């Protein structure tokens, strides 16, 4: 038997048939359906006169366009209301389970899939959303697809796919205080670039992984797409199994035992070969923030805005110049002196309970700076309720944050949660693209703890300084 990687094993297990051109027909176990990428897929299906092949394999929820406050009132935006209504109708007509906006299980697709146990190790999971790689944290082969591919999955429960090359990212060492998994993934993206992962399925491994919670692993895998890779994976282990046991859709009883026996065969064989290996010493990292308009444009918080004139590559120099113009930053400016207007804590990257705990720990007994408007948007209703049970909502509110309902919110700015032109935001989301949080809005990506530190300081700030002041007090 040749030595196989985790990715190879899940891939082979799902090949329905190989095609002569090197592609394969891949079976898809699970499909998360949201309101933005699905209406065209259902319309296509209806035009063909084809029904959904396997309704129980799909789960629908509206997360992108929904408001995060005043949910008991009708949706304020008629286009958003129409889009959500369309999802409800399509789910009903195709006998697909739909989770309503005010249901206790509502949330961002990539938060509720795992919470429900819809996400399982060894499964293939797709969604018309690029951050589907999040589910790879469980050792699932999960990737984002376009609407036409959603239509294909609804109609056939398969996708024609080409196998990717394998990359292993070894995370070694123990992170220092104030440094988290967001800093690790930002550092990796800075290292390999936003297209460094194109064509690869990334497996995250190494000593630092074992100590990461499932929430942290999800943050890590979530941002694989920001390095260009559709797929990010972590091998399932005891942390994974403990997290999944008892989830509503997870196998139970004899099924659980059978599943566990299979899951334990999934980790990469010791002698398996990767096409590319990258290693990162996470013990040497400082908290990081982005300064530009792609996720690779990030540096330690004690750094300065880089100078495009020192960049030898002309394409990259041009992009840096454009980014700095857009961001309103000057080369040489200290990152920890950049003033901010807004703070957003949430998203499928950092909207989970552990993220909120980390931000709240910084906010206890402190106040948001007077120049800053800050919101927390839990990734799901489950996260919100757990956080409320722990009193985190009171910490956020006392500090001056608004406490909202679940959704994608200001990560994608499709609802009312968006930046005004020129506003600058400390954000725990995943993309600092031009206009991502609203036209001409300026985004700085960072961890939840760093976003909390920025909220208090009124500027980008080093969370380590805040923590040490607190411990001296």
């Amino acid at each position, binding site marked *: 038997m040749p030595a196989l990687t985790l990715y190879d094993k899940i891939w082979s297990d799902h090949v*329905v*048939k190989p*095609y002569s*051109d*090197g*592609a394969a*027909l891949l*079976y898809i*176990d699970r499909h998360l359906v949201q309101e933005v990428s699905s209406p*065209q897929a259902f*319309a296509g299906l209806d035009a063909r006169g*084809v029904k959904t092949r396997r309704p*129980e*394999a799909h*789960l629908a929820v509206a997360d992108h*366009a929904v408001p995060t406050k005043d949910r008991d009132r009708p949706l304020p935006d008629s*286009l958003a209301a*129409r*889009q959500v209504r369309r999802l409800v109708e399509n789910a009903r007509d195709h006998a697909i389970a739909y989770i309503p906006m005010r249901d206790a299980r509502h949330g961002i697709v990539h938060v509720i899939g795992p919470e429900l146990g*819809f996400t*399982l190790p*060894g*499964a293939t999971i797709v969604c018309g959303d*690029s951050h589907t790689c999040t589910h790879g944290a469980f050792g699932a082969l999960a990737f*984002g*697809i*376009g*609407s*036409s*591919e959603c*239509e*294909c999955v609804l*109609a*056939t*429960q*398969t996708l*024609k796919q*080409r196998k990717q090359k394998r990359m292993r990212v070894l995370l070694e060492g123990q992170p220092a205080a104030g440094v988290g998994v967001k800093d690790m993934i930002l550092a990796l993206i800075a290292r390999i670039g936003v*297209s460094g992962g*194109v064509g690869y399925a990334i497996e995250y491994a190494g000593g630092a992984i074992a100590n990461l919670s499932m929430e942290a692993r999800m943050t890590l895998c979530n941002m694989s797409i920001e390095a*260009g890779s*559709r797929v990010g994976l972590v091998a399932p282990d005891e942390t994974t199994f403990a997290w999944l046991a008892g989830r*509503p*859709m997870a*196998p139970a009883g004899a*099924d*659980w035992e*059978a599943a566990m026996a*299979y899951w334990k065969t999934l980790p990469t064989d010791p002698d398996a070969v990767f096409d590319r290996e990258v290693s990162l010493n996470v013990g040497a990292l400082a908290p990081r923030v982005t300064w530009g308009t*792609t996720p690779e444009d990030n540096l330690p918080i004690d750094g300065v805005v880089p100078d495009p004139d020192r960049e030898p590559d002309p*394409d990259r120099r*041009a*992009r840096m110049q*454009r980014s700095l113009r857009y961001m309103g930053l000057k080369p040489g400016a200290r990152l920890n002196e950049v003033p901010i207007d807004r703070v957003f804590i949430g998203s499928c990257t950092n909207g989970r309970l552990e993220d909120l705990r980390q931000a709240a720990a910084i906010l206890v007994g402190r106040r948001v700076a007077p120049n800053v408007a800050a919101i927390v948007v839990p990734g799901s209703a489950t996260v919100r309720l757990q956080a409320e049970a722990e009193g985190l909502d009171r910490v956020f509110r006392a500090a001056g944050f608004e406490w909202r309902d679940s959704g994608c919110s200001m990560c*994608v*700015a*499709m609802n009312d949660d968006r930046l005004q032109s020129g506003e600058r935001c400390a954000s725990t989301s995943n*993309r600092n*693209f031009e206009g991502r949080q609203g*036209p001409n809005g300026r985004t700085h990506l960072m961890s939840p703890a760093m976003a909390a530190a920025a909220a208090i300081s009124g500027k980008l700030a080093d969370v380590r300084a805040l923590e040490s002041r607190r411990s001296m007090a």
Partner: protein
Amino acid sequence: MTPFTRVVSVAAPLPETDIDTDIIFPARFLLLLDRRGLGAHLFHERRRDGVGARFVLDRPPFDRAQILVAGRNFGCGSSREHAVWALADFGVRVVVAPSFGEIFYANCFRNGVLPVRLEAAPHGRIMTAAETGAPIEIDLGSQTVRLPDGEDIPFEIEPGRRRDLMLGRDEIDAILADDIGDIRDYESRRRATRAWLDPRLK
């Protein structure tokens, strides 16, 4: 889907790297429900930024370009197929770049749009030729880009994808016609060995 064989057109130069799908099609227009008519919002912010030179796709002769020549990692970021629908609706049938976002690349083929991947040197010659406003020919049959000076630049493309584009073949129709038996076999095999994978929402 319209079969793709050959396109002769001026090519719009967009010499920028990492053009993400949020730039190609901003998120607030994702509330629209239809695949059609999205060209109106293509590069919305760039075409209405009101300062400096007008955006390339608003300047003759490039306002009629069926070919777009962009920098590396074009179409990175969000999976929104709206980016491809908007390009196709505007009239773009070919995008030439050194590399593409993977989901965008796959989405192109499902909408009769040809993404052409080329190394930096030949890509640079196409960008230079595009800037002159002279027509460029893209021939999928011979897998070549012909520049105005007569130079032929070959490009690679996966054979199955090339065939489907040239035939205008719809992948879903093909799977429904050819592969349902295999899918059924797979499902019954799987039910026997991994029953726990069957989803159940309680």
